[in-house]
């Protein structure tokens, strides 16, 4: 493990890339991001789309007019003040390591009742043994006997479907947002406990770390009209950053582009196929942001009320313009040739090799690549450029989901089991600078980590055993903490704050919406079509044709359905 602290915001946010492929890979890439403060978004709560039968409704949104009764009260954590306060939806930043002796306690006493409970969560990599010393230390500190069932994250959606259909559901089940397909949302409503009686309003104050979770994230955790999920908060600011090789840009005196045209002109100047240098990788995600295309990583976020009409991202002129511009980059030969073939290698490797000088990915790459290259190439420097507006000036960015992974408690669990699950959540949601956070992220000192130059460094045992699974049960408000690279930490937060300042919320921001099943596959072919168009295999007019077919096959009906939701619930658009 690297000698630095972590950022929990990291693993919980999927990249807000604007294609529809929300994926585990993107989720894994997100190692540092942020999320933020609840921004006081107006609660949009209103039950809609079918009555809750206790087992949950079939479809609709999870918000309701009675939200105030459901949502937990917010009480910001004051345990440790961040070095960079969150603003405009950014994460909080911590640029220094906090010595073990100065770590605070955010949980006054063991909250667990000592009960046994099983927790099922996705896992990527070899899971540690279920009785390993780290798990034992966590159980001991929380006062529970949690047994983990770490499942292969690649097929987690299938396992989830099978387990939820069976009669043997674990006490706590983690569900990532990208697994909310098919019948999973209705199963969540039917199979998991309403946590409202334990957390709504001031009740949450019995769990101070849960009370410090932003309200936006809780709002996303309302399923079937009930507060069922324990969230991992995430920043609503886009975390797809266009990175550039700062060392090479500075050496050549290249100025950062301020518009789409300037980007293309600079890209032509940079590209030299003879020297095996190309300007960029595939820039589709950045193009969407430059042109102000509505988000594509969540179906509901892609709808927005504009001039009294509800429109989908694929119907907007900005969408076609972004595709056409990205295609221009390919046509001009400024995109690395390997990008023509999808999934051809790792763009970030070409970036560090100096074969392509701009690429876009999750903001966490900033830290990951910088620390990776520090030993190999000391001259290496990278940074994220501010996303330019396509015609110059500032872009119009759209907010992404403020939470995208939840833990649920099995329906019918005893009060003791629910309280033990909440005890785990309260512990793992402890903020940076606390003993609970240190144990959760680094395990036991001397066993799982050692302290070197004031920074915790994981041992081999720590790398094997300290597992991110605990974070899935709940996490604190997002933060970035890389005390080994304080400059990068600061730059990441400041980038988020600048981008956050030009971010708006689309009409269904913050709502968890289950579309009726007959329309869930309507958008399936668009991602591939986007890829084909920018690479020149299909024409932009093919997209217009596809949009027209989408409308007749159910898009217009879906619009009406969303419109009813909006009329009933109001909007968070700003």
């Amino acid at each position, binding site marked *: 493990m690297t000698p630095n602290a972590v950022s929990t915001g990291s693993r919980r946010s999927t990249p807000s890339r604007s294609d529809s492929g929300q994926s585990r890979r993107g989720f894994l890439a997100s190692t540092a991001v942020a999320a933020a403060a609840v921004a006081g978004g107006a609660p949009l709560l209103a039950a809609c789309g079918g009555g809750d039968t206790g087992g949950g409704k079939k479809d609709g949104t999870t918000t309701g007019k009675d939200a105030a009764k459901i949502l937990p009260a917010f009480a910001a954590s004051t345990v440790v003040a961040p070095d960079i306060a969150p603003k405009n939806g950014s994460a909080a930043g911590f640029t220094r390591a906090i010595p073990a002796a100065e770590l605070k306690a955010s949980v006054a006493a063991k909250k667990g009742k000592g009960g046994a409970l099983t927790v099922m969560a996705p896992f990527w990599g*070899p899971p540690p043994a279920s009785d390993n010393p780290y798990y034992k230390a966590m159980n001991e500190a929380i006062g529970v006997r949690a047994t983990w*069932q*770490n499942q292969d994250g690649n097929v987690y959606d299938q396992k989830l479907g*099978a387990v939820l259909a069976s009669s043997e559901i674990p006490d706590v089940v983690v569900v990532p947002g990208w697994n909310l397909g098919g019948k999973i949302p209705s199963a969540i409503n039917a199979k998991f406990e309403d946590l409202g009686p334990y957390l709504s309003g001031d009740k949450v104050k019995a769990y101070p770390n849960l009370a410090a979770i932003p309200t936006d994230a809780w709002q996303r955790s309302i399923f079937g009209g009930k507060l069922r999920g324990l969230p991992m908060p995430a920043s609503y600011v886009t975390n797809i950053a266009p990175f550039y090789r700062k060392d090479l840009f500075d050496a050549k005196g290249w100025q950062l582009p301020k518009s789409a045209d300037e980007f293309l002109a600079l890209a032509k100047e940079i590209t030299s196929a003879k020297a095996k240098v190309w300007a960029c990788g595939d820039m589709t995600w950045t193009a969407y942001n430059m042109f102000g295309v509505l988000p594509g990583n969540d179906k509901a976020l892609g709808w927005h009320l504009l001039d009294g009409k509800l429109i989908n991202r694929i119907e907007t002129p900005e969408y076609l313009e972004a595709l056409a511009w990205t295609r221009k980059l390919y046509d001009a030969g400024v995109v690395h040739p390997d990008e023509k073939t999808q999934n051809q290698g790792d763009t970030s490797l070409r970036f*560090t*090799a100096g074969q392509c000088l701009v690429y876009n990915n999750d903001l966490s790459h900033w830290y*990951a690549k910088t620390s990776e290259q520090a030993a190999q190439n000391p001259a290496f420097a990278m940074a994220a450029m501010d996303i330019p507006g396509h015609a110059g000036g500032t872009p119009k960015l759209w907010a992404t989901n403020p939470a995208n992974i939840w833990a649920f408690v099995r329906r019918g669990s005893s009060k003791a089991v629910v309280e033990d699950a909440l005890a785990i959540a309260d512990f793992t949601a402890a903020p940076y600078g606390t003993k609970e956070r240190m144990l959760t992220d680094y395990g036991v000192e001397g066993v799982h980590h050692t302290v070197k130059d004031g920074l915790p460094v994981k041992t081999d045992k720590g790398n094997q055993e300290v597992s991110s699974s605990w974070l899935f049960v709940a996490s604190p408000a997002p933060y970035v903490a890389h005390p080994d690279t304080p400059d990068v930490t600061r730059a990441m937060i400041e980038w988020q704050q600048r981008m956050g300042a030009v971010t708006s919320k689309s009409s269904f921001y913050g709502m968890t919406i289950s579309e009726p099943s007959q329309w869930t596959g309507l958008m399936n072919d668009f991602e591939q079509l986007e890829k084909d168009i920018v690479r020149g295999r299909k024409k932009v007019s093919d997209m217009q044709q596809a949009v027209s077919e989408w409308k007749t096959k159910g898009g217009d009906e879906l619009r009406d359905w969303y419109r009813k939701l909006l009329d009933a619930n109001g909007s968070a658009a700003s």
Partner: protein
Amino acid sequence: MTRSLTGRWAAPARPVWEEPPGRAGLLAKGLLLAAACLAVLVPLWIVVVTSLSTKKAITEAGGLVVVPRDLTLIAYQELLGGGQVTRAAVVSVLVTLAGTVFSMTVSILCAYGLSRPGSLGHRFILLALMATMFFGAGLIPTYLLVQTLGLTDTYLALILPSAVSVFNILVLRGFFMGISPELVDSARIDGAGDLRILWTIVMPLSRAVIAVITLFYAVGYWSAWFNASIYLSDQNMMPLQNVLIQLVQKQEIPVGLGQAVRAGNLSGLAVQMAVMVLALLPVAVLSPFVQKHFRKGMLTGAVKG
């Protein structure tokens, strides 16, 4: 003399491809075959070289490495250290052996029964079997069945749900039906029962197809990972393919990487390539030994039904 014959006595002209190749033809054929070989060998070369490359070499190459430089075994050490790959390999070998024996036993008995025209209800059974080729129950009912039978978290869950392939039974049946009935009849007159006929006459005559089907099953069990992902929770029971996937995923995670990955020589890409080499090795080693049976077995099974 042939050259001097003209007119009506001349031999009919043969198509050019039936003529003995000239030098240009030989050269073209040679080049074509060489290109075909290279198309197979170059990717293999790149995989092997990348698996043996340091992180620096991979970074400088911008990905896959073609020209070897700074070779290291660190990726293999990462995979084979710690004992989990070794344990998983033992699990895979045992599951493959037990599964293949079980699958072959069931498939041969079933195919033999269905190949005898007089066997009771063979048409109905054949249709029922074939129906499963077109209609599957889906994952959730299968999971519930496996769970109800108490097979989750047992090795049987890696064998039973996919033990029998109807396609393989049909191939075997086709082969068995092609065996001369006189041989079977004479054995029966000599007092042999069905099992003896199967063991002493049918199976020895079907060695080629049995070798091929055995290979199919064995490769299937060796490569399988999905059942283990769904039905097993205990990491110690995981077969090789699952552990290899996990080890690749471990390298993809930016936070939580081993120290060597972040600061040292180990590249995630090298681990991926090393995994490919390890996964390919047993099949690549075994294939030549069954190759000789392969063509005959496949052709025979394919044309007789």
